[in-house]
């Protein structure tokens, strides 16, 4: 059995669209029929060799939405046809100091989707059932795909900002974009973009604004801190995002 996939063979070469073997789910794994897979700037970092030692050949893609197509041995909590999401975190060791302290994102021996395990630029993908998210409540797979990395890293940033009232986000990509849509200006929190803004980002930001906030998003270039910060008291956090 074969499937269509986009395969990364070598640094500096275009990806190739080809027939590859249909993967079989191993113990504890699912095979998912991919409905949508979003692109992420991390994909570019892998393609450019900035993230070392990818699995090669590699199927990229870690913002995956699809439907469960086959169950591996021992999988009980999933059913065929169920919509699920697969993100960057493919598997963790479960016993390093990070895993044992609720920071499995920093696991010392992880598997990453679309980097050290094949990802979603394909018709099918295999994933560890314990690291797959249930998306039964999401009706549009294309719309849900960017949530699987950009949305998640933005969310993690927001958590990292704790009770910060004024939040600056450096690197205004999809992550900051999605989080902007979540943060409610009425809560008294303000988001600012700190970036080398491009024209396409400028125009997309013009559409955003913040609900309940008098001030639109600040885009400053090349200085990365709007003067507003100088006048505001209280804590702020700024975060580097890879979305």
């Amino acid at each position, binding site marked *: 059995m074969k499937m*269509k996939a*986009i395969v990364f063979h070598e640094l500096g070469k275009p*990806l190739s*669209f080809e027939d590859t073997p249909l993967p079989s789910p191993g113990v504890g794994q699912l095979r998912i029929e991919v*409905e*949508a*897979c*979003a*692109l992420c700037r991390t*994909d*570019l970092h892998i393609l450019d060799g*900035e993230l070392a030692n990818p699995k090669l050949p590699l199927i990229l*893609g870690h*913002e995956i939405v699809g439907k469960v197509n086959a169950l591996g041995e021992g999988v009980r909590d999933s059913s065929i046809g169920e919509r699920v*999401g697969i993100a*960057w*975190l493919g598997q963790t060791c479960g016993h390093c100091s990070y895993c044992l302290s*609720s920071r499995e*994102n*920093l696991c010392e021996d992880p598997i990453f989707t679309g980097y050290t395990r094949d990802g*979603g*630029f*394909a*018709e099918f993908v295999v994933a560890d059932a*314990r*690291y797959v*998210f249930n998306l039964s*409540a*999401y009706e549009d797979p294309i*719309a*849900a*795909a*960017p*949530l699987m990395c*950009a*949305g*998640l*890293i933005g969310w*993690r*940033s927001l*958590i*990292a900002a704790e009770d910060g009232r004024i939040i600056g986000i450096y690197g205004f990509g*999809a992550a900051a974009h*999605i989080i902007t*849509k*979540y943060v409610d200006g009425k809560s008294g929190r303000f988001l600012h973009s700190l970036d080398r803004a*491009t024209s*396409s980002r400028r125009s*997309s930001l013009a559409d955003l604004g913040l609900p309940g906030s008098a001030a639109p998003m600040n885009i400053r270039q090349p*200085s*990365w*801190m709007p003067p507003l910060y*100088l006048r505001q008291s209280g*804590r*702020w*956090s*700024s*975060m*580097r*995002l890879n979305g």
Partner: protein
Amino acid sequence: MSDIPSFPYSLIWEERQIASVANLTRKDGNDFLEIARQAGVKTSTVPYPLEAANEAIGDLRSGKFQGAAVLVPR
């Protein structure tokens, strides 16, 4: 990955903080996907057929589109 631009020390005076984030935990995923659904977060997407991956990557590099590029196998 490019350098972060420099800025005056005064901007982080008074114990202000700069932090980075990496990856996700499963708790992040479960929390966020529930909250995003409840909040009705809408994404902006630009679909490409799977076979157009190189074009989508080129467009992402050059900042050609707004929103997120999404590959759709069929």
